[in-house]
């Protein structure tokens, strides 16, 4: 089975005019795309803006996507081009960028701080989420931990993991699901505790 069968299924739905399916693709790839864009634009808030622009561009171009390559490969290319264009625009017009940096407008500063993941709140959330996830992984039984690590960090398919762990594919699927459920339970406790707002995730 192709690694992006579900992506293609979502893409086909979007191509039929069901925009809700694209929201799932955004939720799935937002972190990866922001990280990718941050290689070009160091400022996290700028990176989020450019990543957003990349998702919008990809959505507009989706009717032409034929599925020759994986959706995420195609999306990454768009994101990289968008980031490079933003960088070039900034270099062409450094004056306005400098002015933007030194503006004393309180309202724009507030918006920027709210959006900026590197504000103390944003950093605290990031750290809290990472700690929670890492602690939950450490507490997992060995077979579940190996399965989720091979999947999320090594990017192996279920079949490859099954070969590696010498077990059926169905068992791999079950182990990964149980690992996610255990981590998710811990994560929900963090969000319910008020540090994160669950509604933002939906």
């Amino acid at each position: 089975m192709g690694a992006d069968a579900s992506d293609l299924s979502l893409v086909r739905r979007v191509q039929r005019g069901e925009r809700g399916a694209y929201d799932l693709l955004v939720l799935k790839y937002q972190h990866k795309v922001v990280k990718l864009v941050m290689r070009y634009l160091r400022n996290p808030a700028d990176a989020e803006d450019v990543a957003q622009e990349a998702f919008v561009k990809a959505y507009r171009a989706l009717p032409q996507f034929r599925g020759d390559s994986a959706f995420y490969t195609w999306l990454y290319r768009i994101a990289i081009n968008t980031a490079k264009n933003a960088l070039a625009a900034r270099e062409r017009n450094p004056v306005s960028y400098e002015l933007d940096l030194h503006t004393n407008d309180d309202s724009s500063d507030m918006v920027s701080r709210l959006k900026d993941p590197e504000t103390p709140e944003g950093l605290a959330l990031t750290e809290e989420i990472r700690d929670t996830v890492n602690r939950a992984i450490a507490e997992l039984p060995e077979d579940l931990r190996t399965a989720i690590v091979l999947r999320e960090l090594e990017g192996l398919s279920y079949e490859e993991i099954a070969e590696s762990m010498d077990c059926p594919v169905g068992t791999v699927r079950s182990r990964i699901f149980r690992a996610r459920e255990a981590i998710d339970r811990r994560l929900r406790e963090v969000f319910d505790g008020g540090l994160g707002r669950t509604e933002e995730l939906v």
Partner: protein
Amino acid sequence: MNQEERESQLSAMFDGELPATECELLSRRIDRDDNLRARWSRYALIGAAMRSEPVATARSGFARRVSTALRGVDERGRARRRRVLLNTAMAASMVVGVAGLSISMLRNAALVAGDGTPGPSATANTTASNTTLPEIVTAPTGGSAILATTSAAHRPSSAEPLSYVTPASVVNGNDALRTDLADFIVAHSQYSMPLMRRSLLSALVSNEDGAELAAAPRAPAGTPAGALHAATAASASSR
């Protein structure tokens, strides 16, 4: 299917390990189920945290902002499609209007060229089977056939079309004859090659001499002038 099985499917779908048909059904269910949707989002968050990707985007409402932006894109797209449809409809109606006006002007010109009385015969009819064909008269010149028309052919009955062509001018008396000649060619060439038919009509339209030759007083048969006349006319009709 119970909730746990569905969530297990969700995990497999997130990894691209669910068959496409099941993906389709499950993704539709996610559209209606906020719990599954939130879980999908958290699965992405777990992977991002494990890979040290910037996870605070979840807090900043990134996905929601993208969704709002896309709504704007859809609305603009719909507005643009409406504009294109409207423009197309306006262009089409203009074309129809111009075509109607042209037909009306041509019809009026045909009436002016004929007896000037409007009637059902004014409608252009290109169906050869509905026309009265002009007669061919063989001039009494010892077998030298010259195309001519009887005077009856100049005035078809009111139920029949006036002509296949509209004479450019009614000043010249030969025009009526030229019109009849064109009618004759069209009526008799329905089974001929289109290229030949076009050549004949082109020659007729462009070369007024051809028509004049057909209507010119004929020299008596047997004289050199009569023989020349017959030969030229035959040549003109076969062009």
